[in-house]
């Protein structure tokens, strides 16, 4: 029944959409409500998971908290809605959530004509394959004729179809409604390989009974720029959210951390730091926010690098390398427009 209900969710949400009339700006709505509603992925280790006290935490969640801190001055004034990918679109379209800090890949179709707006990229990922070490497979090009387990609701199916067609290989897809079921079936031997974004393979791979018996193949078969999504047509809200997330990247670039942000605010002579933290200029007010918006966000969650290290980095169980998710000046792809 749970699934039946879930499959009806888009329909229900759309029924609400049909009844909806013109809404006020999302920023005003959030301020009035005193709470930010974020759509997040349901249970992905590192990105969005319930800790031992039942509190949902993770990399994705920190962006929701940062936005709440910037808009409301308090990172805890959030409501998290775990959403299956297929329900998330309808929920953002009809305004049931203010933002998706989810695991969605930015693609043309999703950004155009779907009533949604991607803001930026907070993690650059790509689709990969996990196989059993005992199979002896060393490369994705050896997967001709293989069965591949996936969880649907992403760009996964099309990436696999394109990759296998481009390499003139045959395959059989076994697609599950839920990502964890795909992992279980792969583990039970239903498939030769399990495919997902590499970040998700690492995260969900933690739940394999013997992680050391499995290996992620070197090929990355797709570009998966993953970022937050808001409803189309509310430019102010899009700007507020986009620049809040940029402020976390800029903070890393300028060396502003959760620990030293107070000291930097009081003492730093760097004009960009001063503008970022609201000491000079009125960047916040231009967007209807307090001038301490970025300060509040950094104070709450730290800069981008701190968030990455806390939930995904080498010292966490996931053990992901920064890789292309380093700052541009360190050879990565993270690049924030300047704060001036």
């Amino acid at each position, binding site marked *: *029944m749970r699934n039946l209900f879930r499959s009806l969710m888009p329909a229900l949400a*759309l029924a609400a*959409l*049909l009844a909806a009339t013109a809404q006020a700006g999302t920023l005003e709505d959030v301020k009035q409500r005193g709470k930010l509603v974020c759509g997040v992925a349901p249970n992905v280790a590192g990105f969005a998971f319930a800790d031992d006290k039942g509190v949902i935490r993770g990399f994705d969640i920190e962006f929701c908290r940062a936005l709440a801190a910037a808009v409301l001055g308090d990172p805890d004034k959030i409501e998290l809605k775990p959403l299956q990918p297929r329900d998330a679109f309808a929920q953002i*379209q009809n305004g049931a959530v203010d933002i998706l800090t989810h695991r969605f890949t930015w693609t043309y179709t999703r950004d155009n004509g779907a009533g949604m707006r991607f803001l930026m990229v907070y993690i650059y990922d790509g689709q990969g394959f996990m196989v059993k070490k005992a199979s002896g497979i060393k490369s994705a090009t050896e*997967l001709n004729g293989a069965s591949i387990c996936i969880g649907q609701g992403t760009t996964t199916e099309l990436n696999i179809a394109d990759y296998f067609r481009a390499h003139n290989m045959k395959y*059989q897809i*076994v*697609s599950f409604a839920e990502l964890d079921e795909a992992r279980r079936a792969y583990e039970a*031997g239903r498939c030769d390989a399990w495919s997902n974004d590499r970040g998700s393979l690492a995260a969900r791979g933690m739940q394999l009974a013997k992680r050391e018996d499995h290996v992620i193949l070197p090929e990355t078969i797709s570009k998966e720029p993953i970022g937050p999504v808001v409803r189309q047509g509310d430019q102010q809200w899009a700007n507020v959210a986009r620049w809040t997330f940029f402020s976390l990247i800029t903070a890393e670039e300028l060396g502003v951390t959760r620990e030293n942000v107070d000291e930097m605010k009081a003492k730093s002579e760097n004009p960009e730091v001063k503008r970022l933290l609201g000491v000079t200029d009125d960047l916040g007010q231009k967007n209807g926010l307090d001038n301490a918006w970025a300060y509040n966000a950094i104070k709450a969650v730290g800069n981008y690098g701190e968030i990455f290290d806390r939930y995904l980095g080498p010292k966490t169980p996931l053990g992901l390398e920064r890789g292309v998710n380093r700052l541009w000046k360190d050879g990565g792809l993270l690049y924030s427009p300047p704060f001036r």
Partner: protein
Amino acid sequence: MTLPAWSRRPGAVAIQAAVLLAVVVLVAMAAANAATNLGRLGINAGFGFLGRPTGFAISQSLIPYSETSTYLRALAVAALNTVVLALLSAALATPIGFAVGIGRRSSNGLVNALATGYVEVIRNVPLLLQLFFWYFAMLRPLPPPRQSLSLLGVGFLSVRGLALPWPQAEPGLGVVLIALLAGILLAILAAALLARRRVATGAAPPAWPPMLALVAGLPLLAAIVEGFPLRWELPHLSGFNFEGGVLVQPELVAMTLALAFYSAAYIAEIVRAGLDAVPRGQVEAARALGLRPRTVSARIVVPQSLRVILPPLGNEYLRLFRNTTLAPAIAYPDLTLIFAGTALNQTAQPFEVMVIVCAAYLAINLAASAAINAYNRHLARFAR
């Protein structure tokens, strides 16, 4: 002569007309509002995507399908998969349900307890959990494809499913099929002639030898003449998976078993209620007349209880059909998984996709419903 309805009860008709008008206006307003809102939110609308290629694969299709096929074809593939699953499950659920239902009335304590236990356990565990149980309980013990169990060298059972030979048509098959059709028609004719003779003379020779000769003999003769125009393609292991023949996938098997065993528990209760509905006095009267137990069952109990059993049984079939929507949980590519899932994601047009899926389910279910109702009416004609 009767007057038209509106002149007999003008008030009631006026109210009905007003309600109908209100519904029409409400729907029109909702549609207009939806169109405006979709436009304002910058959402693409329309069913144009149905003609576009999907770009994704489907693990089981009864009709030719590839990534370059259109969404419309994917819809047909998914709908067929749903129908096949429902038919297989119903075909399996019915005999199990009848056996258990009869077992529930058995005077044998063990049989009775087993049947009761079956019904209570199956009815009281959520179907979704039973799905997972069947699926993973089946996957775990099955060997990988390379160590698959060989069934006399023609079939192979592995964790990838059951690979079976599949017939390939060769020229001349048409003649055999025509012979089969002719055989069936002639058999029906023969049955009618025999029935007439029985009425006229009272002689009732066994009907099956001539029928069998017609239905099986004619096509066999044609096949011999045409040199058996059917080639069995054997499955063989190639790389990771089997090729050739047909592969019955574990998802289909697990779905069928779970749905069949689940529905069978309800069918058992329907059957039991139907049998209980025949007054005990009738059975006793029949026995007092000296009828054999088999005759009592076949001529007194079963015909009367069927009238009670069939309407709720039809209901149960419709429910079984709706339960197929749990298929995405274990990756069976039905309407819900392929259309309400993958297609919805790829098109990002949830409204249109959900409308199509709902309409498809409704159409299939209404067709099934009509067939069941027609049969019920046919049966009701004999109710006295």
